[in-house]
């Protein structure tokens, strides 16, 4: 079931210069959310952009009353969202989309998160910690962004932290650290979320090593509920249809189903 709700903003925490952590009261969505799903967010009526903005669910409180969102300010929508004040009402539609597959008992899973792409993986770790065996890699461009990963759930996974420029953590890309893990032992599955180039690289690694891999895609969306056909993702021949829709068939896809050349 999808809900359209006014949720109260409970906390709005500065993570970095341009990232915020929002805690929102929305028991209906919190109760049904699964890792990898997202919500459509609006904090404006007239004085704002047209469309709502899709944001991954980064976690759910233990009492299943609140959801957590991690948002980076990149334009006018995210700017408006991040400047909402505690106590304000935020309009949410969700939970939307298909999340990551549930881990099976004993399944070994490597997660690779690039920057805020860590958000849905963090929810995965929060929800399924214990169900499978999780090893996490989180990468950022530079030290300034490392506080994104300064989070109890991420810490509890013992995640390997990298920065592209080596200003903090391990120097190198997320994929370098992932490759190191893979060299040690092949997992049952890789799950990844982050910038497009990173996902493409992870998909290539998984394909080469013949490991099952799920990626959570960030495509331009309009409705988020399957009504507009706007969020087309070019698929490989194997998928059977030329396009899938990120908001209903995804945002989590089996990486080998995606036509990475066309995308």
């Amino acid at each position: 079931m999808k809900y359209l709700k006014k949720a109260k903003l409970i906390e709005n925490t500065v993570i970095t210069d341009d990232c915020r952590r929002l805690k929102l009261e929305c028991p209906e969505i919190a109760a049904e959310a699964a890792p990898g799903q997202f919500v459509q967010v609006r904090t404006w009526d007239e004085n704002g952009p047209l469309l709502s903005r899709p944001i991954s669910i980064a976690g759910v409180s233990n009492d299943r009353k609140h959801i957590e969102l991690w948002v980076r300010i990149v334009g006018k929508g995210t700017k408006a969202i991040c400047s909402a004040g505690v106590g304000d009402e935020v309009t949410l539609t969700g939970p939307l989309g298909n999340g990551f597959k549930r881990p099976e008992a004993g399944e070994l899973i490597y997660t690779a998160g690039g920057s805020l792409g860590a958000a849905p993986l963090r929810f995965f770790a929060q929800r399924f910690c214990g169900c499978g065996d999780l090893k996490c890699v989180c990468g950022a461009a530079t030290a300034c962004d490392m506080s994104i990963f300064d989070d109890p759930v991420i810490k509890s996974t013992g995640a390997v932290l990298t920065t592209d420029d080596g200003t903090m953590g391990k120097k190198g890309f997320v994929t370098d650290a992932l490759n190191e893990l893979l060299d040690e032992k092949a997992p049952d599955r890789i799950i990844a979320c982050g910038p497009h180039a990173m996902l493409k690289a992870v998909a290539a690694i998984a394909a080469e090593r013949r490991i099952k891999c799920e990626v959570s895609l960030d495509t331009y969306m309009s409705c988020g509920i399957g009504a507009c056909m706007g969020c087309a993702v070019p698929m490989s021949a194997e998928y059977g249809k030329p396009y899938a829709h990120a908001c209903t068939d995804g945002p989590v896809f089996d990486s080998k189903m995606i036509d990475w050349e066309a995308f």
Partner: protein
Amino acid sequence: MNKPDLSVKIGNLTLKNPVLVSSGTFGYGWEFSDFYDVGMLGGIVTKAITPLPRPGNPPPRTIETPAGLLNAIGLENCGLEAFIKEKLPFLGGLDTAVIVNVAGAGEDDYDKVVSELADNKDVDAFEINISCPNVKEGGIEFGTSPASASRLIGKLRKKTKKTIIAKLSPNVTDPSEIAIAVEDAGSDAISMVNTFRGMAIDAETGRPVLGNVTGGLSGPAIKPLALYQIYRVSLKVKTPIIGMGGITSAADAIEFVYAGAAAVSVGTANLVNPAAAKEILDGMEEYCIRKEISNIGDIIGKAH
């Protein structure tokens, strides 16, 4: 005051209220059924149906512009057969008018869809999309020439007794010409506007943003343009007009009625707020009660 009478007659079809939802912005109806009982609407217009499935255009297919949405979906749809099997049963079970938006690459395509559904009990009317700006083969051509629009509608008129609504293109010098042509050819109603041709360019790369290069603009940005076209065309035709273009609130909808629309249709607003059409319907009823308008028909075209 008693509940106002919001019903509207379009051809031989009576809509229980004047709020429809526009083709391509409401999926096949069930996508919104978690949010409210979509059967409460006056009618649901389906995504364009073509005889065979269409994959649609390469992404990106939509991009937001100031107060507007550019789209170039390219008529992606599951095709007539899957529509009948998978989508129509849900729509047919609702207590609302089901209006099938019909598109195609040539006259035969339109003919095929209308003929096949002409006697289907779950279908109440056809909206003939002669105005899609996002497919190269056809569509828009019918919509910019009175002669070809008239020939197409005339042909379809012979195939069905159900209500036929011609959906006009706003990308013409004078939409009244086409409106008169399709009225004469037997269209029971006119729906307008479809999207305005537009495009977006990425200043950083210098390249068009949409996979299809150009697209169609919808949303609040076009509201003043749509109102004007409806105001103008309603002076020239007798058939009812279904007005749309940027309707986001009940006040917007009421403005379209004053401009000359017998019914209104909510498009892009559904994508922004999935409960938009319901809120607009509720708001129109409240408006009529507050203004003591016992019959919505009383204010149609009253801005003239």
